[in-house]
C-alpha cells in the first residue's frame, strides 16, 4: 500500500470552548467600540496597532510558546480556536498574524538566546509586526533561485538586492529573510542561502508599495543597498536555510486562514436567501457547508497531529490545496446563487459589494504562501512519485 494519509477525527478539548466564548465576547466588544467593521469589504482598518496590543494583553499571541519568552504554554488546538474566531469575524490581524504564526516559531528554534529574550515577549504583547522576505523579482516559487546577496564584513553582513511581493513590509518592524551567502553547488542547488533576522526602518532599506487589483496596498518591493545585518542576526546554519524550511510549512499551511478568507460571502448569502430558500439555493448552500465542514475537520486533525509532535507535511499541503481552491471558488459559487435572490433582500447591496471584493481577492489565494502547483508537487513527492 501507498503510505496512508491520516486524518483522525480529533476534537477540540473542552477548555477550547470556554476560550472560544472569551474570544467571541472580546471581538463583540471591539466591534461595538468601533475598532473594526466586520464583513466590510476593502477596509482601510487592516492595520490596527492598538487592537494588536489588546489581543496580546489577553494572552492570545505566542500562545504555544514557553512562558520565559512571554508565551503562554497553551496547546495548538487552543491557538486554533483563537485564529478561526478572528478570521470569521474579519478582525484586523494583519499586524500580528505573521509574527505569531511563523516568525516567532522560527526565532524560537534558531535565534540566539538574547534575541529571543528581546523580541519574543514583544511579539506576545502585540507590539511587533513581521514580514517574510522570500520572493525576488526572478525567484518566486523557485525559492532557491534567490540572488539577494549577504556579503561577509566586519561583525556581520552587507545585504544588496531586492525582495518582492513582501506583505506588510511597509508596516513591519522586522523581516525574516533568506539571502545568498554562497553560490549553489553542483550537487545541491539549494545550498548557499541563509536565513536572517532583518530590522526594518533602518538605513539601507527602501520599501516601495505595490498596488494590488483589489485596490489595496498590502505587498511591497523591498530594496536593500549595503544594508548591515549583525552576525547574531543569522538564524540557523549558514548556507543551510534549505534544511530549515520544510517542517515549519505544516504550521503555515494547514490553519483555518487557508479556507476562511472569503467565508463572509457565504454568511451573507444565507442571510439573503432567508429562512425558506428554494431548492436551488438550499442545494448550493448545503454543498458549500458540507465542503467547509470537511475542510475544517481536516484542518483540526492536522492541528491535533502538530500538537502530538508529528510533522504532517503532506497532510498540511493537502489542506492548503483543497482549502485555497475552495475559498477561491466560493465567491463565484455564491454569485451563481445570489442571482436568484429576491430583489428586495435587505442585505442585497452588502452582498454585491462583498462579492465584488471577494472575486477580486480570489486569484491570490492559490498563489500566496506556496502555489497550488508547488503544493501538488509536495503531495506527489509524499506519494512516492518523484
Amino acid at each position, binding site marked *: *500500500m*501507498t*503510505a*496512508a*494519509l*491520516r*486524518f483522525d*477525527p480529533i*476534537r477540540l478539548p473542552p477548555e477550547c470552548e470556554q476560550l*472560544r466564548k472569551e474570544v467571541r465576547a472580546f471581538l463583540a466588544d471591539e466591534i461595538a467600540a468601533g475598532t473594526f467593521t466586520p464583513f466590510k469589504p476593502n477596509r482601510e482598518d487592516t492595520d490596527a496597532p492598538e487592537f494588536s496590543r489588546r489581543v496580546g494583553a489577553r494572552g492570545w499571541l505566542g500562545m504555544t510558546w514557553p512562558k520565559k519568552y512571554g508565551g503562554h504554554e497553551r496547546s495548538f488546538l487552543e491557538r486554533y480556536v483563537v485564529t*478561526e*474566531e478572528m478570521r*470569521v469575524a474579519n478582525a484586523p490581524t494583519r499586524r500580528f498574524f505573521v509574527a505569531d504564526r511563523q516568525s516567532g516559531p522560527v526565532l524560537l528554534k534558531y535565534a540566539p538566546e538574547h534575541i529571543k529574550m528581546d523580541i519574543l515577549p514583544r511579539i506576545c504583547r502585540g507590539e511587533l509586526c513581521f514580514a517574510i522576505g522570500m520572493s525576488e523579482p526572478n525567484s518566486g516559487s523557485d525559492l532557491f533561485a534567490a540572488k539577494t546577496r549577504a556579503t561577509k564584513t566586519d561583525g556581520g553582513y552587507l545585504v544588496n538586492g531586492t525582495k518582492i511581493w513582501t506583505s506588510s513590509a511597509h508596516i513591519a518592524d522586522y523581516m525574516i529573510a533568506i539571502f545568498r551567502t554562497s553560490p549553489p553547488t553542483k550537487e545541491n542547488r539549494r545550498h548557499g542561502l541563509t536565513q536572517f533576522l532583518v530590522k526594518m526602518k533602518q538605513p539601507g532599506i527602501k520599501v516601495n508599495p505595490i498596488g494590488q487589483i483589489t485596490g489595496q496596498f498590502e505587498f511591497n518591493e523591498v530594496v536593500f543597498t549595503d544594508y548591515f545585518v549583525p552576525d547574531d542576526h543569522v538564524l540557523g546554519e549558514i548556507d543551510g536555510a534549505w534544511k530549515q524550511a520544510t517542517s515549519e510549512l505544516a504550521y503555515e499551511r494547514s490553519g483555518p486562514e487557508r479556507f476562511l478568507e472569503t*467565508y463572509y460571502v457565504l*454568511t451573507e448569502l*444565507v*442571510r439573503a*436567501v*432567508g*429562512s*425558506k*430558500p428554494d*431548492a436551488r*439555493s*438550499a*442545494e*448550493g*448552500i*448545503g*454543498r458549500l*457547508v*458540507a*465542503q*467547509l*465542514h*470537511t*475542510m*475544517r*475537520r*481536516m484542518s483540526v*486533525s492536522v492541528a491535533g*497531529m502538530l500538537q502530538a509532535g*508529528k510533522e*504532517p507535511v*503532506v*497532510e498540511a499541503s*493537502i489542506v492548503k*490545496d*483543497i482549502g485555497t481552491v475552495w475559498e477561491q471558488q466560493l465567491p463565484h459559487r455564491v454569485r451563481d446563487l445570489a442571482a436568484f435572490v429576491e430583489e428586495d433582500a435587505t442585505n442585497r447591496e452588502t452582498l454585491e459589494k462583498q462579492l465584488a471584493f471577494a472575486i477580486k481577492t480570489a486569484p491570490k489565494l492559490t498563489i500566496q504562501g506556496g502555489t497550488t*502547483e508547488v*503544493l*501538488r*508537487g509536495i*503531495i*506527489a513527492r*509524499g*506519494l*512516492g*512519485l*518523484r
Partner: protein
Amino acid sequence: MAESKESENIVVETAEKIFADLADAQTINHDKKGDWKAPLWKALSEAGLPLSWVPEDCGGSGASLADGFAVLGAAGRFAIAVPLAETMLAGWLLAQAKITSPAGEMTVAPASPKDRIALDADGMLSGRARGVPFAKQAGHIAVLASGNGGHSIALVDAAKVRTEAGLNLANDNSDTLTFDKVEPDVIAPAPKGFDQTALMLMGGVVRSLQIAGSLETMLDISVRYSNERVAFEKKISKFQSVQHNLAKLAGESAAALAAATSAADAIVNSPSLDNDAVFLEAVAAKIRCSEAAEKGGGIAHQVHGAIGFTIEHILHRYSLRALSWRDDFGSESYWAVELGKRVAVRGADELWPLVASR
C-alpha cells in the same frame, strides 16, 4: 507523510485478514461464477462480523460502534460485494428495538429517504422500497415502518416480500421491494426520537466509510500503476500533469476519509442520532464522499487509461461501487438540499457556530 495505518484492534485485523485471504480483487475479478462469495460469507459469519453491532443478548457479537465503523472502512478498501454492511446495519436497526437478529444475510428497508413502509392498523406492512441493496440475497429484512402514531422496527422474512431484482452500476443487487400486507415476524416500537432520518443518517455514514475506503485503494493502485506504466520512454508518474492529478486524487481521498471518520466518531459519541451536530456530520460526509467518488474515481480512471476501462482490470470494482454507493440512503444532492434548508432556518449568524461546534 504520517506512518502507515496500523490496524487499531483485533476486530478490524480479523476482518482485514479475511478480506485479504478470501476477497482478493484480482481473484474475484477472474471468478465468473461467483464461487468466492460463499467461503467469504462463511468466514465473516464465523468471525461474528455481520452481527458486529448486535449485542450478545440479541444474538450478535456485541462489538463497539467504533469497531464496526472501522470494519466498514476496511470493507470499502476491499470493495467487499457481499451484504456485510447491510447485515450490520440491519442488525443494528433491529437491536434499537431489542429484536434478536437471525443468522444469515439481511438488508434494510427503506434505503431511500423518499420511500415509506407503513404499519397498518391491522399490524400489516405496506409500501414500496426502491434501491434496497442485496435484497435478493437476504433471508430477512429489517424494516423501519411508520404508522399508529410513531415508528416501529420489524423483522420480516424476505420470502414474504415481492422482490423485483435490479442491479447497481457495479452489478450488485439493488432491488425493489413491495410490501403488500406483509405480516412481520417480530415487530416492536422504535425508541423515542428514532425515525427514518436516523436510519438514513446511519446508512449514509456506512456508505461514506465504504466510499472513503474505496478511494484509498483507488489512490493506491493508481500510484502503483503510474510507477509501472511507461510512455514516451519514461514512467508516467514522472509527468507533472500526472503527478498533479494524483495529488488531487490524494486530496479527494483525504477529504472523504476525514469526513467519513469524523461522522462515524460523531455517532459513536452522541447519545442519539437526533441532533444538529450528528445531522451536519453525517450529511456532510455523504455529500463530500459522494463528490469525492466522482472526482477521485474520475482521476483514477484517467491515470489508468484504457486498461482501467476493461472488465479484466480491478479498478471498476472500486470506482463503480463508489459511484453506486452515492445513491443509497439519500444522494448528495438530496442531502445538500436538506442541509441547506436547516442552515437557512438557523439563520446566517448561526452557521459558523454550528460548524465550529464540531
